[in-house]
């Protein structure tokens, strides 16, 4: 199938890479042609990010050969790769949260004045122009860390897209974006392709991959399993190759319309009335029953992520009241919220996990007080961690491995695992399946249903219609900081959600 393709720009042959004796890539071949958008899919831990990091010079030690424009290359650092025209947007953001937006856009390549000092006015001006051409509404002087994750992701995109790279690697660039931003990104990618750039696009949203890519490569278990031009393949083909067996029902589990169950006859677990926070949301009221999954959907910047943080006491609301199981509560801090019976998984992994610590400590952190009042019981912690590793299919299934060594999707599973042991009254999940592969998403659906059936009230907040549709019993839509629409006990599909948002 590769016969009639234009000349290869980047060629990798027989790439193998292992971490501490565990193979992440085995004899992988990969070819990127000039002016193509190349989709890359595979389950969590299949080795996608690892191969991309080899191309981008992050991993310098590996076996195999790499050729760029016909010449053998071996990068010893990310800088080498950048100088050779390769830019990468990492799965985990690699920006500096303490710096301003403009500084981040020009990270490592600031415009200089004649005297060799940083040309601040020009930097701000150019950053503003570049962001605008991408349709990103962000003040170049704002501190990056204060912006929502999706916006940070767009800014990282801007940095790489405008760095002049010939080869642009996007490792799950859309995982925190909502449909309008994704559309904007895609039209930009097409423009870049026209100008002769080559793009590698990794995503677990198979529809997106099929929509944007010219050809797709599938990885499984560190091996390249298949490669095909897009018009010849469909979603079922991708899934079959990804998981190695026929799994037809996965393919259409998200695209169809779903019937919402509607409000159950149970007690109200959480009652929110007139909640407001300047600049984020205003006058939010809703009720969450125990034993239901309430989906809150909205585009990026609709205030739903801030609402979640506020409910967990991270950024307390300025006005409004909260009742937990009928009792009024004031959640002025996260530790209070936890003690009151709330649990929260934020959308950003970086702010949820301890990369240097082993998996079991990441899982047990929120339940240490349940295990023992004063002392640690590492054996108990490990038992619990092993149970969660089993439930969620975390791979590799080890409680001792350093969290940072897990693949992106598996890290997300650990973030979720943390709260599943503690039986909260209300579980708030912000983008719970971000970065997970199709199989893992199914697992999460199963687990959340189980949690719900145990009588816990669950709130699922997302900018992806699929996530909300696959999980929720009832859906609220937020727009510009206000609740605009409720869907309950009816059929609903992606189109209706998008129209309401």
């Amino acid at each position, binding site marked *: 199938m590769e016969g009639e393709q234009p000349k290869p720009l980047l060629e990798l042959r027989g790439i193998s890479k292992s971490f501490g004796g565990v193979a992440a890539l085995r004899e992988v071949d990969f070819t990127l042609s000039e002016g193509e958008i190349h989709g890359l899919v595979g389950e969590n831990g299949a080795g996608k990010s690892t191969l991309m990091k080899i191309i981008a010079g992050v991993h310098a030690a590996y*076996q195999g050969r790499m050729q760029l424009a016909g010449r053998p290359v071996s990068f010893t650092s990310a800088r080498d790769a950048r100088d050779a025209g390769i830019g990468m947007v990492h799965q985990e953001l690699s920006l500096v949260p303490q710096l301003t937006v403009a500084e981040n856009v020009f990270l490592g390549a600031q415009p200089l004045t004649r005297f060799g000092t940083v040309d601040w006015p020009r930097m701000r001006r150019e950053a503003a122009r570049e962001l605008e051409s991408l349709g990103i509404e962000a003040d170049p002087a704002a501190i990056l860390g204060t912006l929502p994750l999706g916006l940070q992701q767009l800014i990282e995109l801007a940095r790489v897209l405008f760095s002049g790279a010939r080869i642009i690697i996007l490792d799950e660039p859309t995982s925190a974006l909502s449909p309008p931003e994704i559309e904007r990104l895609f039209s930009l990618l097409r423009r870049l392709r026209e100008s002769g750039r080559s793009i590698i696009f990794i995503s677990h949203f198979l529809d997106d991959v099929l929509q944007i890519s010219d050809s797709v490569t599938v990885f499984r278990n560190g091996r390249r399993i298949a490669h095909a031009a897009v018009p010849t393949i469909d979603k079922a083909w991708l899934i079959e190759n990804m998981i190695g067996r026929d799994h037809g029902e996965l393919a259409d589990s998200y695209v169809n319309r779903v019937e919402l169950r509607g409000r159950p006859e149970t007690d109200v677990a959480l009652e929110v009335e007139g909640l407001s926070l300047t600049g984020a949301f205003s006058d939010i009221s809703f009720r969450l029953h125990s034993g239901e999954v309430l989906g809150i959907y909205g585009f990026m910047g609709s205030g739903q992520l801030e609402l979640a943080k506020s409910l967990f006491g991270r950024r307390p609301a300025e006005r409004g009241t909260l009742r937990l199981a009928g009792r009024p509560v004031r959640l002025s801090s996260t530790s209070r919220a936890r003690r009151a019976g709330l649990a929260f998984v934020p959308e950003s992994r970086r702010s949820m996990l301890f990369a240097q610590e082993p998996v079991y400590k990441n899982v047990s952190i929120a339940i240490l007080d349940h295990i023992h009042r004063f002392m640690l019981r590492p054996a108990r912690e490990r038992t619990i961690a092993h149970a969660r590793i089993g439930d969620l299919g975390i791979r590799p299934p080890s409680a001792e491995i*350093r969290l940072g060594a897990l693949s992106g999707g598996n890290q997300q599973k650990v973030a979720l695992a943390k709260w599943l042991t503690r039986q909260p009254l209300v579980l708030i999940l912000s983008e719970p399946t971000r970065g997970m592969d199709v199989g893992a998403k199914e697992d999460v659906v199963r687990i959340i249903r189980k949690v719900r059936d145990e009588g816990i009230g669950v709130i699922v907040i997302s900018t992806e219609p699929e996530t909300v549709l696959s999980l929720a019993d009832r859906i609220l839509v937020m727009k510009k900081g206000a609740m605009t629409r409720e869907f309950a006990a009816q059929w609903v599909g992606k189109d209706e959600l998008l129209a309401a948002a």
Partner: protein
Amino acid sequence: MDATARTERRTAGRTRRILKDRLRTIAPFATLVFLVAFFGIASPSFLSFANLQNVLQQISITGIMAVGLTFVILCAEIDLSVAAIANVAGVVIAFFTVQDSSVNIANIPLSGGWAILLGFAASFLLGGVNAAATTMIGLPSFITTLAMLEIGAGICAVLVRGQIAYAVPPLIQTLGSGSIGPVPWIAVMAALVMLISHLVLRYTRFGRYVYMVGGNREAAEYSGVNVRWIVNSVLIISAVCSGFAGMLGVAHFGSAQQNEFDNYLLDSIAAVVVGGTSLFGGSGGIGETIIGLLVLGVLNNGLDHVSIDSFVKILIRGLILLAALIINIYAQRLRESGAAA
């Protein structure tokens, strides 16, 4: 590539990785072994039993302060007021003890127990001020404890008014300058503080939270850890340890006066950092601090045993500290690139 070459490369890679991972703990230990060997050969008196006793005694006061600081640094905070708080506690117990009539300060004699209690109370209070300013007002601990350094010096100045007091309560006198058999009491006290702190850090929920807050404060917060409470606690622990060190120190030196512990600030920070506890929080511990203390103790003591210009001594200490800082920061980089990869 043939098979043996490949295995060789793989083993080499693994050794390198282990070395990288452990750099922060291996380097201080290697330094210690090297220094002991060097001074042992250079000077016959260095490895004598009496000198060993000496080293122990010399590092005990620094040790108690450094243990408190270890908590703070593990949380990715800093405490610059340890020496000042030690000084305050030392002056306070002297102030509440009967002094010889030749000492011209308006002291208020109380029974020994009360004086000791007040010494601890003073350090607890000053630690509390550090904590409140850091977590409630939100100033960086670097700034609050710098201010506390001045405040502490001020309190001492007001209490002793340039005089020197000599008497301390008998219990403190024994613990600071007595010994049981060949072992100085002060070393026993330091060992006790270290042991307790080690147990707290390793085996209690509080200890785990300290590491987690230092490792990723935001994640700790999102896990429902009461981050403020942890930061408050470590600053108070540090102050109380310093206070204890100060009281013992006054007995050890046989006098309470202004600026008595000024050298100890840098020494105790150096001990923690040289030992390999990360300045960025989240990794390290009491074991590391003990190694750091021994490195500094052996260095200080050993340089006295070989004939070196005392000015060059200062230079050598500075260079060792610089090397330790470079290793500390380099190890952090490795850790971070490991995490990103």
